[in-house]
């Protein structure tokens, strides 16, 4: 069945169709939740919450809307709700907090390039987690999920102008974070842009 048929079947209560719909979209939902939430368990819970919200709300989903945009809206809501609850319970996490968990590099011998790449990945993820939730949200929808500004506006309920400025500020914040941590970017001459 295609997506529309699956959605219709879900509306009629088909759990089989719903499970297939999950498999069709689990990758993008989990990816977004994983990059929104520092904690892997939280990411899993938010991703599950997203699909449960789909099941609960599928009756009101309009077929002339874009399902993936709606799905992203539910996913970002699930992440933001969970992150808010976590902050309330934990008192928040500061970059200066001694208890902040930082993954240590694998002690097994690795090629230098692999170590550097692993460190790079970790630093960029930490920088993303350090962003305010609302900034991380729009940046990930743009960079990771490749949504247009209009789609991001629809998914988040933000004004288009707000989406544009938040993405810009999020990129700037990320750049400043990575620069302030002592790491900086080196540009390869092979990364020369193409002026059109």
């Amino acid at each position, binding site marked *: 069945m295609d997506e529309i048929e699956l959605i219709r079947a879900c509306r009629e209560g088909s759990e089989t169709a719903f499970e297939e719909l999950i498999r069709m979209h689990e990758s993008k939902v989990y990816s977004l939740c994983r990059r929104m939430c520092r904690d892997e368990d939280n990411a899993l819970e938010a991703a599950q919450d997203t699909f449960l919200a789909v099941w609960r709300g599928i009756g009101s989903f309009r077929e002339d809307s874009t399902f993936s945009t709606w799905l992203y809206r539910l996913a970002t809501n699930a992440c933001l709700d969970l992150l808010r609850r976590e902050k309330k319970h934990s008192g928040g*996490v500061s970059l200066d907090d001694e208890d902040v968990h930082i993954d240590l590099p694998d002690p097994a011998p690795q090629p230098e390039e692999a170590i550097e790449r692993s460190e790079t990945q970790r630093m960029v993820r930490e920088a993303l987690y350090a*962003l305010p939730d609302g900034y991380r949200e729009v940046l990930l929808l743009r960079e990771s999920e490749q949504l247009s*500004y209009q789609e991001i506006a629809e998914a988040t309920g933000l004004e288009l102008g707000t989406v544009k400025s938040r993405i810009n500020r999020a990129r700037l914040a990320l750049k400043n974070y990575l620069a302030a941590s002592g790491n900086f970017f080196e540009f390869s001459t092979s990364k020369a842009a193409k002026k059109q």
Partner: protein
Amino acid sequence: MNHEEYRDLLSALLDGELDEAQRASALAHLDECEECRAYYAELCAVHDAIAELEPETVPAGFAESVMARLLEGEKVVKLKKRSPWRGWTALAACAAVVVLAVGVTQNSRKSANTNTMEMAPAAPAAGYREEGAEEPSTGGSMLMQSMTMAPAGGVNDAAADLAEYEGNESVVMTVPTADANPAEKAEGLREAELLLYGEDAEFWLWNHGEYDDAEQGYWVDRETLSELPEGLSLGTSELVARWNASERSFAFVRAADAEAQR
């Protein structure tokens, strides 16, 4: 257009979100302005850094785990307490003076700790890149050092323009200045921010919401907000329309009379 105005434009240029006229203007400016060329190169670097993150792998059995939660029934979801403070509501309602004397249960937060950072030294950009253009080879490397997070001494324009934030904690956004009139302040509120009108608005929020002392307002869930008592209302502004259209389950709310005094 000044540099600040160009910055949003340059980010949109990278994303291919400009119309032809804006794109031409942005490219023409890049031709003339070294500072903006360096800024654009930094935006590209951030874009590349995220693009190069390894894809996330969905845990095995994920779909089954969702189905298991579904088949356990709604009771599992309802048992989750979204707001642990709800238990205080009845106590507060019948002994307000006593509860006020005892103190308000609030989210404990650290004091604001603003990290201000200087922009990294600009790296010369060899040219410009846009989404959809031929992708250059990713031969760049990042020089990694141990992670130290030391606030820089100064605040450049870009960092000052950015919302302050306490690491991963909630953001304190730029809000209109104190001399703005209440209508302008309302317009300056963020999405899902609402004003509650009525004589006992602040007290109702204190009873039913979760106070956020960093942002000096209350988080209230949608269900609770839909059951306002007589005498309280959210008004009929564009903010409410936007909230109704959104699917966020929590709204950030301030009492209108308290907001007017800010």
